[in-house]
């Protein structure tokens, strides 16, 4: 590489004042450069194609692995609640239900809170504090999910069991719909606790993307609104939010994608019970938690294959959600650029 480096600059800089022998060596060097350029181009292109191959590989291997289970149970796999390794009868209803419910709880909490934090960071926060608070929120996103899991199991779940869940059960005991949603006994672990921990995990994603898109609003628009006498909240509600709607929804979808696929944090606190229960306090399971808990212990091809089929379903759901998210964020970028 070193000698090549000298060659290039010598050849390149000498230009046309060269003798015949120099010209010959010059063309040889130039040829070598062309060849290395071609090779490098080819290498980068191969690497780019490898990214495509990775995704196709993921899909193909999941379809291949899931084929026995899907062939045995057919479409009924999606709507069957039973999960019995002994009789080898498996259905995905309980994990799908748990995944959707925990993610819904997470989004219900993370979206409004995340939007409000982004509102605070972009419109209200003193400039000195903006960066440190932003970084702190993003650090929350960097904490590995297993930390949320161990924390959830030893600290958060006992707290829920002792204080929060009994309170909810007592308060809503006589309210028609809510009494079913918050029906006892307070285990501590369960879908509600898992949803809350997911909310904490998703919060930084929603916040940082919302903040970024809010920052992209042209100041002129906001100044015009302030000029006609709008309050800070009105500027946010009627100017910033409508302008950034597409990007904000894209951010939600990205957060939702993370909540749907999150494994370790949920596995610790979900309770791993293959049941569909109306009560949010009941233990349940999610797709990722089932795979994490049972995969290495799964005996028999059909059991393993059913778990891979669960993985395929999860991948399909998150793929759709993430594709929508990227599409919306791309649309916003195109409008801005």
């Amino acid at each position: 590489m070193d000698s090549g480096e000298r060659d290039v600059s010598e050849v390149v800089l000498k230009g046309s004042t060269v003798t015949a022998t120099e010209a010959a060596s010059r063309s040889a060097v130039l040829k070598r450069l062309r060849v290395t350029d071609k090779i490098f181009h080819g290498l980068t292109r191969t690497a780019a194609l490898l990214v495509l191959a990775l995704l196709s590989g993921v899909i193909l291997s999941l379809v291949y692995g899931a084929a026995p289970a899907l062939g045995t149970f057919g479409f009924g796999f999606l709507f069957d609640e039973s999960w019995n390794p002994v009789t080898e009868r498996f259905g995905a209803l309980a994990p799908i239900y748990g995944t959707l419910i925990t993610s819904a709880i997470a989004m219900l909490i993370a979206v409004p809170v995340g939007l409000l934090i982004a509102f605070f960071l972009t419109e209200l926060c003193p400039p000195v504090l903006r960066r440190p608070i932003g970084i702190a929120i993003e650090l929350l996103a960097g904490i590995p999910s297993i930390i949320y899991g161990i924390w959830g199991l030893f600290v958060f779940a006992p707290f829920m069991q002792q204080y929060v869940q009994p309170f909810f059960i007592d308060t809503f005991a006589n309210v028609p719909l809510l009494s079913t949603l918050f029906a006892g006994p307070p285990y501590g672990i369960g879908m509600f606790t898992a949803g809350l921990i997911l909310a904490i995990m998703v919060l930084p994603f929603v916040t940082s993307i919302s903040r970024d898109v809010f920052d992209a609003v042209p100041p002129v628009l906001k100044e015009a609104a302030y000029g006609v006498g709008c309050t800070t909240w009105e500027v946010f509600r009627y100017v910033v939010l409508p302008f950034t709607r597409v990007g904000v929804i894209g951010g939600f979808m990205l957060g939702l994608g993370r909540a749907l696929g999150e494994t370790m944090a949920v596995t610790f606190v979900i309770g791993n019970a293959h049941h569909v229960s109306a009560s949010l306090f009941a233990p349940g399971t999610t797709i990722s938690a089932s795979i994490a808990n049972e995969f290495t212990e799964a005996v028999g091809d059909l059991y393993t294959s059913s778990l891979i089929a669960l993985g395929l379903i999860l991948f399909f759901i998150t793929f759709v959600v993430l594709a929508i998210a990227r599409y919306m964020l791309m649309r916003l970028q195109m409008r801005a650029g």
Partner: protein
Amino acid sequence: MADLSIASANSPLYAGRRRRNAIAKGLALAATIFGLGWLVLILGILVYKGIGGLSLSVFTEMTPPPGAAGGLLNAIAGSLIMTILAVLIGTPIGILAGTYLAEYGRHEKLSSVVRFINDILLSAPSIVIGLFIYEIMVAPMGHFSGWAGAVALAVIVIPVVVRTTEDMLTLVPDTLREAAASIGLPRAHMIVRIAYRAAQAGIVTGILLAVARISGETAPLLFTALNNQFWSMNMNAPMPSLPVVIFQFALSPYEEWQKLAWTGALLITVTVLALSIVARSLTSARKSS
């Protein structure tokens, strides 16, 4: 004129708008405190629970059998080896693919497809990556292995590095590229000598962020590298890793194991946070200079 403004300032409509504004501001402040509160709470409890078990033996002794005292040496070593291998495998591929997106194929159709797919991979559930590697490596080979774990982590590294490399290379001004082209430097040499140098700090940041991401990953290791109670440097055998040991120990009924799990959790968190802070300071130093 003055009377008019006082009158409108005290009108019920205006008072209502001001009240709504004050409520919204208050809620925003509360939400921010709520968000930061979790960070403080999680880190606080982690330090409180983890620091007690922190001693030299954590770094010098193997993971113990149930009910005995011990350390995390083999898990730490396994994690280090698999992380380094994953970075060695994933980084070159990621940088090359990112280079293609930003330099050769910036306006090609293939690039927009790759970009889109890469973004999907970036946020794909990591447990699915584990299943993928299980299918293509563990099942054909017939046993769990450190290699499978390293490859699974590499698959997570690639999209992160692709993304940051592309972003950082597009930030390099085109005039630099044109200057190099004008003295006859072929593209590959321009990229390696000029574009890479200009984007160096950003690309290193991307790699650090990728390391931060995989050093806490548990799900893709569960059924690729599995776990190992003993000291094992054999890449073809199951290999222990810190996150998987934490998972196993935290869910066990033994007090010693749970204590080690907290200590391990503290170690991982400190590593990850330190990495992301270093990564951040690298890019911000570059911006301000």
